[in-house]
C-alpha cells in the first residue's frame, strides 16, 4: 500500500496544476497516470491557452458575453469569471515552471481569437469574439514534468486507477494496477483529485484515443453527480487518412497570409457544390457537416486554399468526446470539491459547464484545466491538512475492489475488450445516433448499451496486463455511452451541439437548465438543474439576437421556432 496526502489521477494540464499546488502546501503528493506524465492526455496537443488580462484592455463583460452567446446560455458564468480571472496567474505559473511562450520584447505575444478574422457569408453571421490566446512553444510538457519532479511530486507513470476506495462515505484512496506486470496497488490518500480528462469511444486517431471517460466513470460509481453529457464535439476527418488528427481539418488552410499568426479555416462544400452553412466553421463541432450528410448532401469536401481540396468524412468513432470543459463531475464549491467527500475534480473531468453548449473560445479548455487544477489542488491540500490521523481502509473493501480489478484476468473466456469496443463504436459512432439525434434511435442505442452493460461487460476477459487496461477502459466507455444516450434522450430540445431531429428548436422555457445524472439505487437517473435566473438571456432581445447561430435547417429570420419545430 502506498500512502500520500493527495492523490492526483491524470497528468495533463489540470493534474499538473493540482499536483504542484498541493505540493506547494508541503504535502506528500502522488500523481498517477495510465500513460507517462507529459505524454498523456489531450493537453500535449493543445497549442494555446486563453488569458484574460485587464491590463491588455480585455473587458470581462465582453468575454462573458462571448461565452453566453456561443455557449447558448449553457455556460456557468460564475466559473467563467473565476477561470478568466485566474488565467493571468496561471500563465505566470507556467512561465515560472519553465514553459516558454511566443514572446516579443520580453512580453508574451497576445493573439486575437482565430475566428475574429474569418470572413463568413452574410447569411451566416458569426458572433463577435473578443477572447485572446497565447501560444506556448514546443516541449512544454517535458518542462512541466521536470518541474514536478524537482519540487518533489511523486510520479506514478503507466498506472491505471480503476476504482475510488471509500471509507465511511468519504474517499480514502484508490486502487489500480501497473500496466506492465499488472501489479495491483492500493493508494491511500486523504484527498483525491480526479483529472483524468474526458473521453470518447476510442476513435481511430489521437488525441482522444486514450481517453475513455475513466474519471467520470469512477466518480459516478462513487456517487458523484455528472452533468451535460448530451453536448458533443464531432471532429470530422478525411477518408484517406482517417487516423490523421482531426485538428488537421480545423486549420488546414494554414496560417493566414493577410493576418500573420492567424489561422484560416477551410471552406466546406457539399455534393451539390454549395458552401455548407458555416454556423461556426470548424469550431462548432461540425454539426453542420453531420446535418449535410443526413440530408443526403455528402460527400463533403474541404477547400484548403493553396493546399487543394480534401474529402471529408464523419468522425471516426470519436463518438463524441464532448466539448471540453463542459460535462463531467459537478463541483460543489470554488475549490472543485464534489458531492463525494474527499473527491475533487479538475480539467475535463470537472463539470463546471464552463464553455456551455458549444466550444465557445479557443484556449478555453486549457485555461479551464489550469484554473480548476490549481483550485482543486489547493482545496484537496486544505482538506488533507485538516484531517487528523489517518483512518484505515477496510480490508474487506480492498479485497473486493482487488477482485473486481482482476476479474477480467481470472476469467478464461468471455468477450475480448477489442470486440466489445468495436460493438460499442458500431452502436454509437454513426452520425445518426449522437450527432443528428432522434428519440427512436437513441432508445435503440440505449437497448444495446444496456445489454452490453448487463450481459457483456461482466464477461470481459483479459489475457494479459495490456488487455486488462482495455477491459477496464471498455467498461468505462460503456458507462459513458449510457450517460451520453440518457442525457441526449432527456433533453427534448436542440441547443448548441445537441441536435434532436424530433425536437429541432431551442426551448428556453423548459431547457435553460443543465442535465445532470447520478446513480440512485443502482440505476442511472437524470434530472434538471435550472440555470440561475440572472444568467438567462435577456428576454427583451429578439430570438436572433439571443441566438445568432442557426441550428441545422433553421431558417434565418423566421423567428423563434418552438421545440417541436412547428412553423418551419
Amino acid at each position: 500500500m502506498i500512502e500520500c496526502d493527495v492523490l492526483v489521477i491524470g497528468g495533463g494540464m489540470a493534474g499538473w496544476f493540482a499536483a504542484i499546488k498541493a505540493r506547494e502546501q508541503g504535502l506528500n503528493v502522488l500523481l498517477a497516470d495510465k500513460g507517462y506524465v507529459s505524454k498523456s492526455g489531450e493537453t500535449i496537443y493543445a497549442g494555446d491557452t486563453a488569458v484574460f488580462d485587464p491590463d491588455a484592455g480585455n473587458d470581462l463583460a465582453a468575454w462573458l458575453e462571448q461565452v453566453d452567446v456561443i455557449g447558448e446560455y449553457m455556460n456557468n458564468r460564475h466559473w467563467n469569471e473565476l477561470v478568466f480571472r485566474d488565467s493571468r496567474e496561471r500563465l505566470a505559473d507556467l512561465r515560472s515552471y519553465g514553459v516558454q511562450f511566443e514572446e516579443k520584447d520580453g512580453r508574451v505575444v497576445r493573439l486575437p481569437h482565430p475566428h475574429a478574422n474569418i470572413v463568413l457569408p452574410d447569411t451566416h453571421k458569426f458572433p463577435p469574439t473578443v477572447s485572446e490566446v497565447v501560444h506556448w512553444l514546443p516541449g512544454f510538457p517535458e518542462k512541466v514534468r521536470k518541474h514536478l519532479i524537482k519540487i518533489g511530486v511523486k510520479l506514478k507513470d503507466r498506472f491505471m486507477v480503476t476504482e475510488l476506495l471509500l471509507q465511511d462515505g468519504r474517499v480514502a484512496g484508490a486502487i489500480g494496477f501497473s500496466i506492465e506486470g499488472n501489479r495491483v496497488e492500493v493508494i491511500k490518500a486523504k484527498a483525491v483529485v480526479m483529472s483524468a480528462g474526458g473521453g470518447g469511444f476510442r476513435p481511430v486517431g489521437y488525441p482522444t484515443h486514450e481517453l475513455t471517460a475513466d474519471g467520470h466513470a469512477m466518480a459516478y460509481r462513487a456517487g458523484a453527480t455528472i452533468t451535460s453529457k448530451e453536448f458533443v464535439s464531432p471532429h470530422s476527418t478525411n477518408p484517406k487518412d482517417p487516423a490523421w488528427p482531426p485538428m488537421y481539418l480545423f486549420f488546414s488552410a494554414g496560417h493566414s497570409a493577410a493576418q500573420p499568426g492567424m489561422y484560416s479555416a477551410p471552406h466546406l462544400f457539399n455534393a451539390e457544390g454549395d458552401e455548407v452553412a458555416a454556423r461556426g466553421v470548424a469550431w462548432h463541432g461540425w454539426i453542420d457537416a453531420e446535418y449535410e450528410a443526413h440530408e443526403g448532401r455528402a460527400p463533403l469536401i474541404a477547400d484548403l486554399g493553396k493546399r487543394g481540396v480534401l474529402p471529408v468524412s464523419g468522425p471516426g468513432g470519436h463518438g463524441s468526446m464532448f466539448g471540453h470543459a463542459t460535462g463531467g463531475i459537478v463541483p460543489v464549491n470554488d475549490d472543485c470539491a464534489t458531492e463525494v467527500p474527499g473527491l475533487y475534480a479538475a480539467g475535463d473531468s470537472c463539470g463546471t459547464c464552463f464553455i456551455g453548449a458549444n466550444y465557445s473560445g479557443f484556449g478555453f479548455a486549457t485555461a479551464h484545466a489550469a484554473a480548476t487544477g490549481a483550485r482543486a489542488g489547493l482545496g484537496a491540500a486544505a482538506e488533507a491538512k485538516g484531517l487528523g490521523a489517518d483512518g484505515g481502509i477496510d480490508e474487506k473493501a480492498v479485497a473486493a475492489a482487488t477482485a473486481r480489478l482482476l476479474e477480467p484476468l481470472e476469467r478464461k473466456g468471455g468477450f475480448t475488450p477489442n470486440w466489445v469496443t468495436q460493438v460499442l463504436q458500431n452502436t454509437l459512432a454513426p452520425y445518426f445516433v449522437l450527432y443528428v439525434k432522434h428519440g427512436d434511435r437513441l432508445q435503440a442505442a440505449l437497448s444495446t448499451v444496456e445489454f452490453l452493460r448487463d450481459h457483456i461487460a461482466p464477461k470481459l476477459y483479459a489475457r494479459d496486463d495490456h488487455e486488462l487496461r482495455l477491459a477496464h477502459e471498455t467498461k468505462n466507455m460503456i458507462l459513458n455511452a449510457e450517460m451520453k444516450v440518457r442525457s441526449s434522450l432527456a433533453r427534448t430540445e436542440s441547443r448548441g451541439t445537441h441536435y434532436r431531429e424530433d425536437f429541432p428548436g431551442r426551448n428556453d422555457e423548459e431547457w435553460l437548465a443543465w442535465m445532470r445524472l447520478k446513480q440512485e439505487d443502482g440505476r442511472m437517473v437524470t434530472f434538471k438543474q435550472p440555470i440561475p435566473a440572472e444568467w438567462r438571456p435577456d428576454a427583451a432581445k429578439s430570438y436572433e439576437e439571443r441566438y445568432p447561430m442557426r441550428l441545422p435547417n433553421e431558417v434565418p429570420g423566421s423567428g423563434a421556432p418552438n421545440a417541436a419545430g412547428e412553423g418551419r
Partner: protein
Amino acid sequence: MTIEKIDLDLCTGCGICIDSCPMDVIRMDRAGQKAVIRYPQECMNCEQCALDCPEEAVTVTPYKTVPLISSWG
C-alpha cells in the same frame, strides 16, 4: 487483403477471372489487354479467380481488413 495482385507479366487478358468473380472485383483495363483489380473492397475471398486463371497470375490471401467505421461516408 483478399485479392492482392494480378501479375501483369503473366496475365494474357483472357478474361476468365472476370467471369469467375461473382462480385465484379476484376475488370479489363482500358485497352482491353489485361485484367485489373478495380473494386477490391468487394472481394469475398472465394479464390475462384485464382483457381481458374490458366496462367496462375492471380494472388489471393485469406486475410481481409475490416473497414474503419466512420460516422458517415
